[in-house]
């Protein structure tokens, strides 16, 4: 497949966005076409390449995509509430980006490895990460919270774009594994797994994104760069990050770039499945730009009313990823009121579980932090731990006598 990918667009779905017009003016050519299969009207269109991928989705798959999106939106509401109640130090909402995350995550295979940024709660759901565990980092009881080896879903990375390079290196490791396997047992010399690196439009300005794409292209690493362009890097709009559509950048690195309607879960799933196959077949990297919108704040510490008009949010709410899939499912008689009621009940149950579990997440003992600074024994850590133990022991008697004093009524 060349760099010009077939795509489809629908009336009424074009983004009313001066920044896009600016980008076209700078490029002297139209912005990259956007792949869309399911429009905001809930009608399914056709695409010469990607319809074949959409057709593979069973009715059960489609209902599952909806259920996942609804579950993660409900989770997002719950986590935001937990933050407001002081149970979490911070929350990073994803509402609006459910289709980009569920569609791409569900397109991955278990052997694929995922490197998220820090908003990929929906992708985490598709990788079977326990969502209560995911809250550990935001509750301040861990800088991670789950074992990536269990789910092939890496820890969140807070330094923007650093993980894009880890993803490429990991993909280079997959290539080498395959060669080692071919040398020992004659297996086919082709990656059996691929990697997805998630990042945002803000992170696209970081040098590590550039370096990761250079490395990926030079070594044809089996990696899919999945950029969720949610239009705002905290308060800074995308046009300060780039003057051209982000998907167009892939051309400069020599691999395909696809802009997909990030609020269309069917198109996102199809495009990601295609890209992962492309990577696994040894054809090198792909950049996907999921054109979407962060409806809420960047984090709970942020106030979007200070930097963007509510009319913009309203315009994007009209493209809601859940609403359009619901329209389609109902129109095709794939789901009825009972289904949607069940999804809602399941979401409430998930929220209840997360709330109960988050409350119960225990504060760690700092001795665990001493234990994991290094993989091998380290004399300075041992010395400081010994000091800490002795220092702590000095208070033990005081606490005891204070307790006795309290009991004695002093």
């Amino acid at each position, binding site marked *: 497949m060349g760099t010009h990918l077939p795509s489809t667009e629908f009336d009424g779905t074009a983004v009313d966005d001066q920044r896009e017009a600016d980008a076209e003016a700078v490029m002297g050519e139209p912005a990259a076409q956007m792949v869309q299969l399911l429009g905001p009207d809930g009608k399914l269109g056709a695409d010469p390449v990607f319809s074949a991928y959409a057709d593979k989705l069973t009715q059960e798959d489609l209902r599952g995509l909806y259920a996942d999106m609804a579950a993660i939106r409900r989770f997002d509401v719950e986590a935001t509430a937990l933050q407001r109640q002081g149970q979490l130090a911070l929350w990073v909402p994803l509402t609006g980006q459910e289709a980009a995350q569920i569609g791409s995550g569900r397109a991955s295979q278990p052997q694929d*490895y995922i490197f998220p940024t820090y908003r990929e709660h929906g992708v985490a759901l598709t990788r079977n990460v326990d969502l209560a565990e995911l809250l550990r980092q935001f509750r301040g009881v*861990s*800088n*991670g919270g789950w*074992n*990536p*080896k269990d789910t092939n879903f*890496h*820890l969140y*990375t807070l*330094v923007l774009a*650093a993980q*894009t*390079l*880890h*993803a*490429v*290196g*990991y*993909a*280079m*490791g*997959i290539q*080498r*594994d395959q*060669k*080692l396997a071919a040398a020992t047992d004659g297996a086919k010399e082709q990656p059996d797994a691929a990697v997805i690196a998630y990042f945002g439009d803000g992170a696209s300005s970081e*040098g*590590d994104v550039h*370096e*990761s794409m*250079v*490395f990926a292209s*030079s070594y044809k690493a089996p990696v899919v760069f999945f950029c969720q362009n949610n239009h705002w890097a905290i308060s800074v709009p995308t046009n300060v990050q780039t003057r051209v559509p982000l998907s167009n950048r892939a051309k400069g690195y020599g691999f395909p770039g696809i802009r997909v309607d990030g609020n269309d879960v069917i198109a996102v799933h199809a495009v990601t499945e295609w890209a992962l196959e492309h990577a696994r077949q040894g054809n090198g990297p792909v950049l996907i730009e999921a054109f979407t919108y962060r409806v809420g704040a960047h984090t709970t510490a942020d106030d979007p009313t200070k930097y963007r008009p509510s009319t913009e949010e309203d315009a994007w709410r009209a493209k809601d990823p859940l609403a359009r899939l619901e329209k389609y499912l109902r129109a095709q008689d794939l789901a009825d009121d009972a289904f949607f009621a069940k999804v809602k009940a399941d979401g409430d149950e998930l929220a209840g579980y997360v709330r109960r579990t988050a409350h119960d997440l225990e504060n760690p003992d700092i001795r*665990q*932090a001493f*234990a*994991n*600074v*290094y*993989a*091998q024994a*380290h*004399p*300075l*850590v041992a010395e400081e731990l010994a000091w800490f133990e002795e220092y702590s022991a000095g208070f033990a008697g005081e606490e005891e006598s204070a307790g006795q004093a309290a009991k004695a009524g002093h």
Partner: protein
Amino acid sequence: MTTMTIAKAINEGLRAALAANPKSLLMGEDIGPLGGVYRVTDGLIGEFGPDRVVDTPLAESGIIGTAIGLALRGYSPVCEIQFDGFVFPGFNQITTQLAKMHARSHGNLTVPVVIRIPYGGGIGSVEHHSESPEALFAHTAGLRIITPSNPHDAYWMIQQAVECQDPVIIFEPKRRYWLKGDVDVQAPGPSEDPFKAHVLREGTDATVVAYGPLVPVALAAANAAAEDGRSVEVIDLRSISPIDFDAVTASVQKTGRLIVAHEAPTFGGIGGEIAARISERAFHSLEAPVMRVGGFHMPYPVAKVEEDYLPDIDRILEALDRALSY
């Protein structure tokens, strides 16, 4: 025993590491057919091929960041940074990612990445080619930092770094790349822990601690002092993180005086850390304040004046005089 230079010893050590571990690989700029600008990787691409000796794009963050990913997949990458002053584009990956991955994953992930950095001055080179940034890395928990001063250590320490499950930065004293010495390549393995100091010369009047490029200078200063009837003990620190404080403490308890010498600027440097720790550990053994000999608080100066910047025999002897005057 075989006689070879430090550069050749590292080359042989890397060859042995690549042969021993099929999942080890080298990454860096110009390390393939050129063999590195110092020829430390000379001939290795011919033996192990381009998947094991990877000529990378010119991007330090890219080299270290992809090495982290390879390590997460079970590989043991050894990165070459061409010159000390060029490590900073990769500083973010080293300090915010590489150093912390094991801790933040609760020990579930290990990233056994080795980073080789030729460092230090004395070669008459241009800006950013002669710096000693070891303290900037030593301040970050999660990293191990070693620096060999002789070919035998260079041969074994690079192999030990590759085997270590923690990230290791190996600062290579570039002005000593051509220093020759005996290497016991026949030994079944290293006889020394790479994170332990060596007492190179016994003495009773004062201790001089040095590492990397200044070790030969410290030994020469001790020899000169001996002509004046002063007995100076010389310790090659070898490991900058962790520091073998037990070895330094034991020496100071014997000699009562301590001088720490390094090329890096004195302010905020490793010498200050050693001085503070030894003051705590061996205060009653000290006959004089701990003296530091190091670079000045300035950017590494131009080559034509670097001899005035670099600690030499006389600067160490001057500090010794001051210590003995108490």
